[in-house]
């Protein structure tokens, strides 16, 4: 154990030597953002006229908006005109063996227990024929196609299923929704599109497929998932593997639509570059995620494990419009060193007998600042709505902070809304107990933290639950003296 700990410490203290390497790029749009750039993006992608118009509308709305300032995070001003908003997907340099991969990343892979073949894929090493991504992808694709499930990149969806995209895009997150959503709507690069037809239960976690297939979705990702009547799907976004990216600003939009009796489970593991020990660098992650339970008895579940990014700003939300619909939000957010997270959810109850559950676990270490910000709204007509919220914070060290800002707005007498929050630190007695039984302090903390997060991990697809737990340990490295 102790050697591992030493290694971990050494790794945690080593800087990422390679920095943000940018290969020589071709086909990059000039820096800056104006209508011509929006037109350029649209024409490069060969988009239909209506989509260009929609992008332009969003862009014009964005120009009139102000960057939000209410969130509890601090970051250097973002230069929106100093960025290039379009780069053609580029070939990554193929590596010959895993030995060429950054040892820090490899060590992390090992600690996460990612299978060797998958490691190769993730780090862009050439793989043998058996595990060729294309063939795997093809198998999956044909299996899904048999059931009538559409699962493709957003650009493909625009080409092949324009009627579906046109019907649903912006229907949950309008292009005027907020500053970052408007920016995304104007310049979104690509993303995923999922359509599950009536009565179909998607036979596989779309995660597995996604991990192999979706690379380089870019800085302004857009995801749209539609589950038709009685359909169900489980989707996993992101990856436990550390992800390096040269783009500092990420502004993604995710829209979910659940029709009558449909179920969507959306799980996220986010482990982007958090910046170094001194708080320089790191991704700004400004995400708008929202789902609508349109039909009766529909259900949307958000599960997220947020360990990366230097600044996280995201509030996966549910609009519970259908009667008897259910919204759930399970979250673990970890901030270490100088990371800041302002995250939570909104549950908007409109239909009768709607129910929502919020479980949020925030862990702050180092000088990390963790904020839960959530809203529960019970509309006038939402009879017998029920909400239960629980927000727990765990503090490791005395220089970090935990903040809770729940907003409850209730307009119906029959509503039952409960919110509970607690903040505590890891008990000295718990650590002492573990140490007296020969468990190293770092491992003891990992154990306690895992226990703290159990309620959320339980909601993750199984293999990710295991990886997420390990990821948590890695994220908290060096947080105890």
């Amino acid at each position, binding site marked *: 154990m102790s050697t591992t700990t030493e290694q971990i410490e050494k790794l945690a203290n080593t800087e990422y030597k390679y920095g943000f390497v940018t290969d020589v790029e071709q086909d990059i749009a000039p820096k800056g953002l104006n209508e011509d750039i929006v037109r350029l993006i649209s024409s490069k992608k060969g988009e239909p006229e209506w989509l260009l118009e929609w992008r332009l509308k969003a862009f014009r709305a964005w120009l009139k908006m102000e960057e939000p300032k209410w969130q509890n995070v601090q970051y250097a001003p973002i230069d929106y005109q100093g960025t290039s908003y379009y780069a053609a997907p580029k070939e990554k340099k193929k590596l010959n063996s895993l030995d060429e991969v950054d040892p820090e990343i490899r060590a992390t892979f090992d600690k996460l227990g990612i299978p060797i073949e998958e490691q190769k894929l993730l780090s862009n090493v050439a793989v043998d024929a058996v595990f060729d991504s294309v063939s795997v992808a093809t198998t999956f694709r044909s299996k899904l196609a048999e059931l009538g499930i559409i699962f493709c990149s957003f650009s493909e969806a625009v080409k092949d299923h324009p009627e579906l995209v046109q019907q649903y895009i912006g229907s949950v997150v309008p292009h005027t929704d907020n500053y970052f959503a408007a920016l995304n709507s104007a310049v979104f690069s690509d993303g995923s599109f999922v359509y599950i037809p009536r009565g179909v239960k998607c036979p596989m976690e779309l995660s597995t497929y996604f991990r192999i297939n979706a690379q380089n979705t870019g800085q302004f990702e857009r995801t749209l998932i539609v589950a038709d009547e009685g359909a169900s799907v489980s989707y996993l976004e992101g990856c436990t593997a550390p992800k390096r990216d040269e783009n500092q600003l990420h502004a993604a939009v995710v829209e979910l639509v659940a029709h009558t009796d449909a179920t969507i489970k959306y799980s996220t593991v986010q482990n982007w570059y958090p910046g170094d020990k001194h708080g320089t660098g790191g991704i700004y992650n400004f995400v708008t995620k929202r789902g609508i339970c349109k039909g009766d008895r529909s259900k949307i579940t958000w599960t997220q494990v947020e360990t990366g990014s230097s600044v996280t700003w995201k509030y996966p939300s549910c609009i519970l419009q259908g009667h008897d619909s259910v919204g759930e939000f399970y979250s673990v957010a970890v901030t270490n060193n100088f990371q800041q997270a302002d995250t939570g959810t909104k549950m908007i109850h409109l239909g009768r007998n709607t129910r929502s559950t919020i479980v949020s676990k925030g862990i702050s270490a180092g000088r990390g600042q963790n904020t839960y910000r959530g809203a529960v709204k019970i509309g006038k007509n939402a009879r017998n709505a029920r909400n239960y919220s629980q927000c727990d914070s765990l503090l490791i060290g005395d220089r970090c902070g935990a903040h809770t800002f729940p907003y*409850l*707005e209730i307009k*119906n007498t029959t509503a039952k*809304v409960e919110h509970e*929050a607690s903040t505590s630190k890891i008990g000295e007695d718990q650590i002492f107990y573990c140490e007296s039984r020969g468990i190293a302090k770092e491992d003891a903390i990992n154990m306690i933290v895992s226990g703290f997060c159990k309620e959320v991990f339980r909601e993750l697809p199984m293999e990710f639950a295991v990886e997420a737990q390990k990821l948590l340990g890695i994220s908290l490295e060096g947080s105890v003296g």
Partner: protein
Amino acid sequence: METLVQVPAWVRERRERAARRFAAVGFPTTKLEDWRFTNIAPIAETTFADAEGWFAPAASLVSSVGVAGSVRLAIVNGQFAAGLSDLSALPKGIRIAGLRDGARDGTDGLEQHLGTVFSIDAHPLAALNTSRLDDGVAIFITAGAGVDTPIHIVTVTGGDGQAVAAHPRVLVVAGANSRVRIAHTFIGAPGSIYFNNAVSEVVVGEGASIDYYTDQRESEEAFHIANLQAHVSAKGVFSSHAFSIGARIQRHDIGIALEGEGADCTMNGVYLADGARLMDTHTALDHAMPHCTSHELYKGILAGKAKAVFNGRIIVRIDAQKTDAKQTNRALLLSDDATINSNPQLEIFADDVKCTHGAAVGQLDEEAMFYLQARGLTRIEARDMLLHAFAGEVLDGVKIPALREQLETAFFTALARDVELKA
């Protein structure tokens, strides 16, 4: 009203600073996070005349809320009314001064404390009050004095047929290891329109203990903005109970800073919002030092088309280890047209702390209603009994029996007012 000669330079200076501040920020709008759910445009839009220090029903209003055996300090339209006050029971160890006279006479401690307890910058309307700083009362409790006689401040506001604005001010300074109970009643002539913008500052010395009761029974057409700020030194105890049933728009800001080790505070409140009333309570608890404890319980009853806002902030500063803070907010909704916005906020910068908050919103328990009705109570009696029990948790904390009885009567009267019972 006064000549410049009578107003000391320090008062003028504090007024001017606050006036500049208020001019810069203006009336708060719903664009500000702190005022997001509270629209006070009706106040800004109404023209209020400066209140005179007298109006016809003032005397009868003051006596209507009299608490037997207490020292009574009357403030009429923001001005200390010696004639309506009753200092006959004034015990040893306590000094009382009207602010205007006190400032003129150079009363000890006034310049040091008045307007210095909290930073006016944070509260635009408190800045407005300071900019009009004129009169009010100051209460000084001598170190070591245990005062058993309750002090009752009665603030009455109104104009004879005219909408007036008043800016009453109260300062309480409790010396080390002193002990006192203070109640502050706000009342106005029923149906009259006025704007009462009160500021109270409390300094709790080392080891001192203050029970403070705020009793808001303003006219149902009044605008009531009140700001109570307390600084508590080491081992000091500050216990605040707020009872609100009046006003068309109420906004209470209660801020308590625990600034010495081992300080303790209780912050409880109950409000009844019916009709088209807006009841806004913003509490802030600042745990600045280690080993402090705080308990907060706010309960609300909403009926009609009323709206209530509860915003409870707890800040635990970076060195405030071993903090124990507990906050509970509960609301009962009796009507589908009523709205509650409940926003507890915890901001914690220290790791060795115990902080919890809970918020619950619900309705009257139908089973309990059924049980009581099965025993022969009418539906209204059953409801009142349950509501009384709900409010009782806070009302029981009022340690001046005569005042508690008054509040309970006022509570039942208010329930009968227009809290409609659904079939």
